[in-house]
């Protein structure tokens, strides 16, 4: 919806308007730390990132899993990212364009989400919660919630997990 509006606006204003308009798109820079584990058997975790707003269906922004496994085998364990599966995942089909991604290695992982691309919607001002959940094969599961207020110009939030997630933070600007 919002995406289409942008497109119309762009068309109406001509090509010259494209650049400033793109620069003004809401952009979320997200940082997710996956802790390095000293365990005998380590598998990179499945991670889901989604956005919640009261009264609206949760929106999945990104999911990291075994996207390339043969025959869609990677989707078999998606339900282990349990809260996300219930909130949003079970109503989606996979691979999800602009949302599905490969699992990532331990360390600080960066993700840039631009409104209107992939799963990222253009936000209207209000209260939101960004949720990051990680579930690891033969490991644990953890969820970090980052509530924030979007005032139309900028927002930032940070939280820290205790087991499967390290520091999680983002800045959102337009």
């Amino acid at each position, binding site marked *: 919806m919002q995406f289409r509006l942008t497109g119309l606006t762009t068309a109406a204003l001509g090509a010259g308007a494209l650049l400033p308009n793109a620069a003004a798109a809401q952009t979320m820079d997200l940082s997710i730390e996956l802790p390095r584990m000293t365990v005998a058997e380590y598998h990179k975790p499945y991670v889901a990132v989604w956005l919640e707003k009261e009264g609206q269906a949760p929106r999945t922004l990104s999911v990291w899993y075994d996207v390339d496994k043969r025959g*869609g085998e990677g*989707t078999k*364990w*998606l*339900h282990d990212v349990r*809260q996300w*599966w*219930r909130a949003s995942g079970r109503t989606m089909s996979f691979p999800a364009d602009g949302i599905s991604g490969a699992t990532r290695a331990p360390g600080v992982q960066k993700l840039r989400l631009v409104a209107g691309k992939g799963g990222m919607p253009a936000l209207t001002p209000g209260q939101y919660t960004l949720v990051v959940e990680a579930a690891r094969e033969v490991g644990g599961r953890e969820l970090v919630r980052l509530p924030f207020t979007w005032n139309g110009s900028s927002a930032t939030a940070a939280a820290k997990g205790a087991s499967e997630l390290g520091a999680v933070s983002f800045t959102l600007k337009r």
Partner: protein
Amino acid sequence: MQFRKPLFAVAAVAALAAPAAIAHRMWLLPSSTVVSGNDNWVTVDAAVSNDLFYFDHRPLGAVPTITQPDGSEGKAEHHNVGQFRATFDVHLTQQGTYRIAVVNQGVFGRYTLNGETKMLPRGTTKAQLASVIPAGATDVQTSETLMRNEIFVTQGAPTNTVFKPTGQGIELVPVTHPNDLVSNEPATFQFLMDGKPASGLYVTTILGNGRYRATQKQIDLRTDAQGKVTIKWPEAGMYWINVTPNAPQPEGEGPRPQAQGAGAPRAPGGPQGMGGVPSGRRVSYTTTLEVLAP
């Protein structure tokens, strides 16, 4: 099973009709209830035992009926009946909620013909009743059994087609979907008796894994005027739910009279205690619900 002496037969029928209500618990235990992807299998243990969910007594060997999310009949594969448990697998190829059911339905009874007491053949159904009782039979006593034991498994998002009531016996209607349970959220279910909301049903909820704790973790509730009951889960886990029109009976006690309220209509026939055929109707509903951690 051939009965030569009516007396023996009567005793045997009484014992056959009674087990679920009196002694042990029948249960179906799925390997998963919430799955993702497009092509999965679940396996199910089916057994009768006291402790949930430990197969240490008898298998529940009946062939289950599988209903797929689109309403069509599915298949129980690799069915195997062992000493203590039966197992079977269900191949999930559709998106949505599957029902896996073992319904024990039949009529027990007897009649007198030419001064001789005869038992109804085993496996008689309600529909066959008129044809199996010969003309001229007197002192007809029948007891209908309809014990429904069903579980639900969802691939993808939960759906509701398998909850369409048949109007027979006790059935569950979701208010909360049985495959959408989380320990920090109370769940509400509605129960129907013969298609109508049934108030005052006894709903027994027991958490599995009892072997490793000293208490049963049992919750006893009754359905309200709309046939609804709300269960607050003490923790995540597999729960056995049993719904009956009568107060569930303590373990190890003998047969007790059937309730004669609206929930358990009496069958036409003689008074209670004539030769041991339980008069009235035995209906129950049993399910196993998986409650996940938040």
